[in-house]
């Protein structure tokens, strides 16, 4: 079994990335590839659900850092939700929790996106 898995789905106009397992420098290319695919398909409202993510290093956090400006320039955002205490603490150690939106669960995160998405 792979130590890191990623899957995605669209929910109400939000691209949700589900990360699972151990995200380090060895696995980070797969995360970047999926994030870039989302952006190239003009999905700029991106939610990273880390409910099953048990480890992240600066390599994974760096990918979020590297693309968030582009996404925000296009009127979207990258938000994070459902992180374990341990993974949240890792983001906190580099000061990300002051800059990014960390939301307690997916439902609340989707509601936050829906408040800025144009009504159809």
């Amino acid at each position: 079994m792979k130590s890191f898995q990623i899957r995605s789905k669209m929910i109400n106009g939000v691209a949700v990335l589900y990360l699972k397992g151990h995200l380090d420098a060895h696995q980070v290319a797969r995360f970047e590839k999926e994030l870039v695919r989302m952006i190239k398909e003009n999905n700029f409202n991106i939610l990273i659900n880390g409910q099953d993510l048990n480890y992240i290093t600066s390599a994974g956090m760096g990918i979020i850092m590297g693309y968030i400006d582009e996404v925000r320039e296009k009127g979207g955002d990258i938000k994070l939700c459902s992180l374990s205490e341990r993974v949240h603490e890792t983001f906190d150690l580099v000061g990300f929790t002051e800059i990014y939106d960390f939301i307690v669960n997916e439902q609340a995160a989707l509601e936050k996106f829906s408040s800025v998405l144009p009504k159809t």
Partner: protein
Amino acid sequence: MSRPPLKNSAAFSPKPDFSLTILSETQLLKMVVELTRHIATLFQFPLNEAQKLSLAIDEAVTNVIKHSYNSEPGGEIRIDYFLAAAGMRICIHYRGLAPDISVEEVNIGRMIKKKKKGGLGVKLMKTIMDSVTYTTVDGENCCEMIKWRTAK
């Protein structure tokens, strides 16, 4: 009354208690992380501290693989663990390019504007560990990291 343990380099034996040599391959990082966490917990560091300590080692070894060995496999990395009552000292020995020891303050806002993906690892290491020092002697680089045990 017993004296508190020393909190300087004299606290540690000159000979490592445990040593591991790996090749510069990122697939080995998970093993190093799990081993470091295991050593730290065996050595009575609380689990939360042991997890952070192993993350700092992951960051340091990742930097060596990416920057000193330019992600080329086959470079040797020796990790020495020194254990003492006062804490844990870890020395990572490697060749390849000398490390960039710039002391530039990490500014996340500026890094976002520059669309940078790297540069957070050293900040993590310095935040987690009590001391991070890089030296190069006769072409051999050493990253020394110390974590002192907090008083109960």
